């Protein structure tokens, strides 16, 4: 180490200061450190490769045994029956509908809040609202599930009784249904949507706004006709990130959505791809357990598609700015 430092520390009288004095040790240490940094960087690459490989290895065989068509397009899920059925269509559709519903409810609220923070709120008020958003992002998903279970589920349950009354054809869920799941998911994606949209709204050049206002447009018109179109790639990113968060959420919605395998309907007790894994993983064995990994693989494919879309948006946004 003294050798290494020797070239720099001037007040060491052992040898005269020389830049090339310790080149040899220096360059070997340098090379080793660079290798270490490259290795650290490669950890992420390795992790993604390993996760992909393991999901494929542990997910594909079961699909082969069950049959791809039956697995993807059958709605009968009876994993522990004598003649087990492994059709996950209901779960796939529930995940898609649930995510779409969460986006439908959460994005408008989130986007408008982002507009408020970026454009309308006075600085002090903004500084009071922003911590609430940050803390929403930090709350563990199990707490969303717990509060959803105690507050939202009974509320939706009362609504269900009001709506369906004595309808004999309706299976009452007591509020533990897709509707409650969507509401909880919508709340959970709020921070993502708000943060990313606000950042992109703030990144819109001030000249755009000034020009619009100078032409006589009102502030509200400026926001909706100028700012939002200009920030659209960032807003699209926030929506895609929200989709990713919603489709991957497990612990919060398992507590509020009833967990019976049904086709997605607002008032049905439903099971998502994620909750399908969580609810049976603890006791599944053999082919059943392998099929749960196949469900994980399907979820992984969804996430992969979302990632590709995200990258396409970011790339397009980047080109536009160049």
């Amino acid at each position: 180490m003294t050798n290494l430092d020797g070239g720099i520390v001037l007040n060491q009288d052992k040898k005269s200061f020389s830049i090339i004095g310790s080149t040899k040790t220096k360059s070997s240490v340098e090379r080793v450190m660079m290798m270490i940094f490259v290795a650290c960087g490669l950890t992420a690459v390795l992790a993604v490769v390993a996760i992909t490989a393991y999901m494929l290895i542990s997910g594909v065989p079961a699909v082969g045994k069950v049959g791809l068509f039956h697995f993807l397009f059958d709605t009968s899920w009876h994993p522990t029956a004598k003649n087990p059925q492994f059709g996950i269509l209901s779960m796939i559709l529930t995940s898609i509908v649930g995510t779409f519903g969460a986006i439908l409810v959460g994005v408008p609220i989130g986007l408008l809040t982002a507009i408020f923070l970026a454009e309308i709120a006075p600085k002090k008020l903004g500084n009071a609202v922003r911590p609430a958003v940050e803390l929403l992002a930090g709350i563990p998903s199990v707490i969303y599930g717990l509060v959803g279970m105690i507050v939202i589920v009974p509320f939706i349950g009362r609504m269900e009784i009001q709506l369906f009354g004595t309808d004999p054809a309706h299976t009452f869920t007591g509020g533990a249904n897709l509707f409650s799941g969507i509401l909880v998911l919508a709340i959970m994606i709020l921070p993502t949507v708000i943060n990313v949209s606000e950042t992109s709204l703030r990144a819109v050049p001030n000249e755009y706004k000034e020009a619009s206002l100078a032409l006589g447009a009102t502030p509200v018109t400026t926001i909706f006709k100028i700012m939002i179109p200009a920030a659209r790639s960032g807003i699209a990113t926030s929506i895609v990130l929200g989709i990713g968060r919603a489709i991957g959420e497990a612990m919060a919605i398992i507590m509020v959505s009833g967990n019976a395998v049904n086709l997605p309907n607002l008032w049905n007790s439903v099971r998502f791809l994620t909750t399908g894994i969580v609810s049976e993983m603890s006791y599944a064995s053999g082919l059943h357990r392998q099929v749960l990994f196949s469900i994980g693989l399907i979820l992984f494919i969804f996430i992969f598609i979302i990632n590709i879309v995200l990258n396409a948006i970011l790339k397009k946004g980047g080109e536009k700015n160049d």
Partner: protein
Amino acid sequence: MTNIKNAVSITQGKRRPFEAILKMLIIVCSALTVLIFLSIASYVFIKGIPSISWQFLSTKPSVLRGTIGILPSIINTLYIIVITILIVTPIGIGAAIYLNEYSKKGMLTKAIEFTTETLSGIPSIIYGLFGAIFFGETLRLGYSILTGALTLSIMVLPIIVRTTQEALKTVPYSYREGALGIGAAKWYMIRTIILPSSIPGIVTAVILSIGRIVAESAALIFTAGIATSLPKGLFSHIFKSGSTLSVELYQYAANRGDNNTAFGIAVVLIIVVLIINLLTKLISKKLGGGNA
């Protein structure tokens, strides 16, 4: 020419009901967001405070005496935090240094950036499955705190890399030029100039990771398991199964139907979240103040 009349009307205070409604909506939605947070937090406190007592925080659950305590979960959570941070921080900082100081624009850099991005998008349940089968079965670690910590290390890696990278970017370029200009080698420059200047950013990265670890449940339930025993030895406990606070909350709420205890744990978790938020604020404020 013909538009002069219209132009005049714009400057006059014309009533625009549609715009007023939009503005209203913006304010209502923002208020709703704040209200959602406030009601969740206050609801958790109101429901949870009564279950909190010294015994609740300082004992293990006992079937014989019929008492409930969350000390094992608190200890397990600390174990997982410490081990995960010990594993992931050096790797994450190394990766950030590579990306910011060494990398040239090429395939390798692109691959690292893309995969880091990908890791942050993978849902925790997938990490749980992967951790259970890779660390738990292939590496034969079973349900253990180590399995959980290794799994979470991959999960929080993107947080460390990205936050550290941001911190490295804020170190002025002139520092590097100055150091290199007087003959410092690259690693020497990084060790003595770049890293010390970005310590607040690295601390922020660690705190954010702790927040994610404390909140995590889906990735831990199939890796670290759900045991609630107190450690018998400092190191042997690493290889034992143990549930963290979040996992324990889920167990009480979903499987044991004991919502009061669940809310008690929720209070502890929310306080941790508040502290973490406050700490990151303090650091960034200090950092901002230092630069100004």
